[in-house]
């Protein structure tokens, strides 16, 4: 079980997807609390350089049965991913690449002139990508 979320700079959600869909509320709660951690990390960076390493925030915090990873773009759009702790095969690099894919797809959405930044994301291509990615994880 895992979940993938996208939050905009004002911290309201642009996109939420869980696999499987039960326990979703718990995931939502986790993700919202993790936003605090994300903000903490962002503010800690402060004037640091913006480079790849800092977009990826890494493991935000582990809880008893799942891990939360964060990623923030330059425009303060936050990606949060919750994965099951039992999924030990998931390496950091894989998480990074998943975030990168997410970021790429997000940029594609941005390129769509019909998309207003700040809207919920309804793009089918994005959905497909996220689904396939989460299938890999689960």
């Amino acid at each position, binding site marked *: 079980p895992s979940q993938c979320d996208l939050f905009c700079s004002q911290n309201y959600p642009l996109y939420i997807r869980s696999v499987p869909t039960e326990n979703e509320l718990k995931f939502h709660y986790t993700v919202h609390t993790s936003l605090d951690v994300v903000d903490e990390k962002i503010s800690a960076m402060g004037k640091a*350089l913006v*480079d*790849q390493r800092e977009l990826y925030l890494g493991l935000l915090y582990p809880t008893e049965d799942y891990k939360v990873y964060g990623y923030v773009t330059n425009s303060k759009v936050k990606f949060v991913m919750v994965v099951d702790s039992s999924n030990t095969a998931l390496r950091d690099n894989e998480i990074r690449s998943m975030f990168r894919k997410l970021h790429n797809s997000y940029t594609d959405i941005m390129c769509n*002139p*019909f*998309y207003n930044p700040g809207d919920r994301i*309804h793009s089918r291509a994005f959905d497909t990508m996220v689904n396939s990615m989460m299938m890999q994880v689960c």
Partner: protein
Amino acid sequence: AAAGTAGLLLPLSETEQQRYSELFSRCCPPPEAAAGGSSVGELFRASQLPPDTLHQITEVCGAKRVGYFGPAQFYIALKLIAAAQSGFPVRIESIKNELPLPRFMALKNDTEVRYGTPAEFHGVKFQVPHATLEKNSYKRTDEGDKQEPKSPSMSPICSPPASPSTYQRIPLSYGYGKARSGLEQQHGAPYEVRHSTHQPDGPSSGNYGAKSAVTCSTPNRSLSVEREQQDSSTQYSDDPWRITEEQRDYYINQFRSLQPDLNAFISGSVAKNFFTKSKLPIPELSHIWELSDVDCDGALTLAEFCAAFHLVVARKNGYQLPETLPETLLPEYLQAACLKPMRDCAQFDSYPEPLPGSQQARDFSRTEKSSAEEVPDNSALLQDGKKDDKQALKVSTTLKTIPKEFQHLTMKAAAQEPHALRARPRSRSYSSTSIEDAMKKGEEPPTPPPRPQKSHSRASSLDLNKVFQQNTQAVRSGWLPPPPPALPPRPSVSQTEQPSEVELHPQMNRPPSQAEENSSAKKEVVLAQPPSKPTRRKLRTEAQGLETPELSPTINVTSSLPAVKPHLPVQKQSSKQKRAIQTAIRKNKEANAVLARLNSELQQQLKEVHKERIALETQLEQLRPVTVL
């Protein structure tokens, strides 16, 4: 006589039965026993068979004998029409075969008929095109969900044929197969919408208004006729996702109205305004954009624009949007088609018998389809396998603009998913680079707002396309910033840098052949003494695609270069060579110094940039409202 024809046991399949009875009731109002001659005549003419064939059919089916079209005669006649359209001779024997349903041009749907009686139909026809087209498309979207994407109903709307171009259009519209003409008539409708809303392109609007008028003149005669759907979707000319020549021309004209240069892009906002006028709901337009903007750069090339326009048109005519871009709408396919329009015309316009034409055309598309079929995923983005030159350039642009670690990752991702190879040179340069890489690449503008926003990228793509137009034909290298504008700090050091640059290049050119570096490097040094800045840039641009992996080692190489050099002359005995080598060493040392200086200068610049950035960030912090969660 009735017995004579009825004695012929006519095997009718269920669909045929249904169709024929519908047609018959169309031509023959229920109380009567026989179809009216005029409506039958209209129907027959709509089948587009030559008149003598029609006469033959009338004879053979027995109507001439009995003097009227009873049900039996009518059914036989329909079967014969089908036979004739399939290429069989008009004989009683032919209809014993399995035949597709006879096809009639310019037919309406059932629903259309239900909505409008012929009287209303006429009235509707002569209303103001704009208003009625709105109604038409509104109706269409209602029906769209109900119907499967079968034959779109004919647009009953036509503006009064005012211009003489009407007559030119006639042969064209007749020349097309029925499905296509139907589709065109549909397109006539939304064309009108768009024309009236935003395009004051007089002649073409007149043309297309006239076209729908023309195609309405056929319905004029065949109002009550219903078109039949091709039995199978393998019928090539029926493919709604195929763009006809006329449609393509229309799209190209529209493109021109937005962007005079056919090889350039239409930016996203322009396209957005344009397509919003079609009054499709935004989510659908968004989806259409996603489908058609294959390389996801926020701008549409001509091919992409045609695809998008075609999708809009199709959607307005009631077709459901596909989940992925059909092969016939892919940019490569469209570009290929665009490039040889005349040949395609020959294929597409051969409509005396739709089947042979479709046969050819089917084969034509088979090459594309077969390669497309292998792609498992349904995303249009996975058609990378077909892009040959585009991919090559994209790969090279990827290599050019992405520092090596990104290149790595892009490649890795490409291994995992073909679509990631869809190069992202617009790349994550802003997200990626360390200082080193930013320096090394040197092509990203070193000045502040370095993050290419959408608009920035697009603007750059617009400019760049013109720049690269000469070099690359219809290939988008939009994400490669042209060297000239991106190297403002360089010119000051370029002169001193040149010898080292040129040395770098020979170095880069022969990384494996260290052995022969001795003589070759020497020669390079000697020959390359007066390098010019354009040469350097040219070398950079052209060679860079191949040599980016080596770009990072170059700086190391430079330092090693003088180190390597001293070893080599050990072999040579002649003093002249020794001297030459020593000069080379000296020059390399100079180059080294120059590069070191360059390094420090760039570092300095970087510091300044950082300072600016810090200043901006503090400003931002101050401006931001206090409550930040």
